């Protein structure tokens, strides 16, 4: 009997100890030598699931087939988006402000909006000023980030475009004014998703509002622009009655996929959406072949996805190697094929079957928007003023 009790107590203590050790902090991966003399490069990225699978393909390719395969090994640290980017930016800021050095933030992938957020949180001197001689493939990249161009290297573009059903709309509008005329002539056949639920709707409303403001406002997070949004919001109210409606009230669906579903089902004929979403779903047969994309003037926003090397990382050479790999034709082709990304190098000798539409998207014409922290105020105002119009 006594033995039983002792064993029971020992088990209980052991389980408690195990449970508590599970709550302990995880040891950070040091980038000391991995197997076979290769050094590790930790790549931090965030996004939706298709971005994760693309990065896994790319890191595998780098680790096995590229010219760097026997020198570096890239480990992907991926954070599924939702509130992920806020956390990644916070994590970088925390590490930088705590004065940490030799952390495992060797290489970080950031979108335009997050780049400006991180740069303002952390400061550009915490990032390596990129030496172009270490990235030979960058010579063929003409696109340049609008935020801290010397400290980040763009490697792919994404853009929001107008997706439309070519059977119902043989000649799509070419300018914003033509689009508004089309909306009024075809009430209920256009929809955009609620801002804050998907980037396409965000892009449409911000482009519409910032069309009334000077160009530099679009990449500024200065609070003074907030009071100048009135004209833009009046415009959004004026087009509200011509939006898609169901059951007697106007509806702004949630998520980018919400409007794409409506377009595919034939309930609407046009919507703003991401180029890569439309093209990859069309290629896989999830949406009809008659759905095409077009850009309007002034264009809906695009953004460049860039990589930065924090000075508090621990494998600068490996980071440079991976960036150079990302700009190689092999890697760019993987990105085109697997996620309809817009390549930033000359695509004439890449295999672009099924994605010829991407070649028509001129990256140098991209309108970049990064209003940083103002986006929360923007979404809240939309929810209160337009969302409640019913």
């Amino acid at each position, binding site marked *: 009997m006594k033995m039983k009790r002792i064993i029971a107590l020992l088990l*209980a203590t052991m389980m408690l100890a195990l*449970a508590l050790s599970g709550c302990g902090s995880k040891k950070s991966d040091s980038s000391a030598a991995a197997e076979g003399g290769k050094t590790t490069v930790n790549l931090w990225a965030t996004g939706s699931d298709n971005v994760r699978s693309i990065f896994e393909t790319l890191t595998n390719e780098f680790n096995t087939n590229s010219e760097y395969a026997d020198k570096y090994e890239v480990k992907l640290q991926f954070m599924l988006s939702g509130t992920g980017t806020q956390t990644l930016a916070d994590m970088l800021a925390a590490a930088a402000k705590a004065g940490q050095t030799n952390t495992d933030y060797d290489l970080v992938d950031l979108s335009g909006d997050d780049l400006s957020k991180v740069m303002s949180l952390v400061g550009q001197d915490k990032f390596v000023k990129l030496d172009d001689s270490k990235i030979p493939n960058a010579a063929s990249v003409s696109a340049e980030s609008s935020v801290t161009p010397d400290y980040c290297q763009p490697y792919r573009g994404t853009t929001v475009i107008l997706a439309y059903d070519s059977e119902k709309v043989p000649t799509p509008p070419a300018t914003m004014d033509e689009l508004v005329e089309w909306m009024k002539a075809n009430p209920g056949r256009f929809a955009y998703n609620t801002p804050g639920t998907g980037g396409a709707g965000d892009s449409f409303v911000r482009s519409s509002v910032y069309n009334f403001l000077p160009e530099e406002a679009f990449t500024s997070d200065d609070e003074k622009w907030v009071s100048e949004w009135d004209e833009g919001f009046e415009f959004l109210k004026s087009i509200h009655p011509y939006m898609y409606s169901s059951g007697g009230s106007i*509806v702004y669906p949630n998520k980018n996929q919400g409007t794409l579903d409506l377009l595919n*089902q*034939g309930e609407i004929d046009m919507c703003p959406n991401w180029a890569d979403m439309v093209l990859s779903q069309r290629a896989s047969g999830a949406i009809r072949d008659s759905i095409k994309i077009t850009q309007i003037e002034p264009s809906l926003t695009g953004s460049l996805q860039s990589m930065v090397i924090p000075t508090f990382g621990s494998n600068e050479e490996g980071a440079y190697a991976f960036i150079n790999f990302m700009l190689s034709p092999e890697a760019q082709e993987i990105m085109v094929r697997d996620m309809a990304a817009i390549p930033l190098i000359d695509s004439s000798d890449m295999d672009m079957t099924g994605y010829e539409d991407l070649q028509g998207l001129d990256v140098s014409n991209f309108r970049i928007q990064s209003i940083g922290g103002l986006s929360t105020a923007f979404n809240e105002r939309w929810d209160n003023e337009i969302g409640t119009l019913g």
Partner: protein
Amino acid sequence: MMSKSCKQKLVAYGLVMPAFLVVMLTVAYPIVSAVIQSFQDEETGAFTLDNYLYFFTEPAQLRNILYTLFVVVMTVVIAIVVAYLLALYLRFVKSKIAKTIGTLYLLPRFVPAMCAVYAMITIIRDSGLINRIGALFGLDIKLGLMYHASGMIVMNLWFNIPFAAMMITAGLGAIPDSIIEGARDVGASKLKTFTSMILPLSIKDVVVASTFVFMSNVGSFTTPYLMGGNSPKMLGIALFDQFNKYMAYNRSAALSVIMFLICSVSAGVYIYTNLKENDWEKQ
């Protein structure tokens, strides 16, 4: 040396301690910290009731609360009525069809929420299955259920009718046949048997089922996110907006406390009904 009962008590506490600590850490501590946060001002951290007042004075937010209550109460009422009828059918009708339904009625609950919602959307949307079948006959049927309360209530019934029916069936199963036969022997009609014997004996299970249906639907997210309109919104979506879109963490804490209080009303009803002793249960 400690007495035997003292030792026994220590052992008992010691064995319970790990589980208790886990519950404290994962349940009690976040609740307490959320409640504290809900009373703090966003910028200064000073005590304020503004976060709560926001939800009761902003017309859009107040509408959200009333809308959620409407949708949830309708879901509870319809789910319980249908579930009760289903349970009565399964209990008192002895046929092959009834037996088959008895084994199949729980299946809808096993379908993952996202799949079920998309399945429903495919059928009821304005360009969905019903509309296309109607088109074959030359009719343009647009149900108008999507993005409105009616659609969400229909979707909620998918998950809640089987669950409520399961609980009520269990309760009805506990009513012995002899009671029913006894009532019929003294000449009670079917309706009288129901109102004076079956209903009072199963009312507690009905209240339990209603409580669970109510509490699980107040904070529902998937259905309103995919099928709901822009205004008014269900509280689950309003809460998501507050902490994810606007990053207003103090207001989100206040809204969660408000939702918690709404649920505790229904929990209170449940506790009251269970504690109240019925006449026939008194010794």
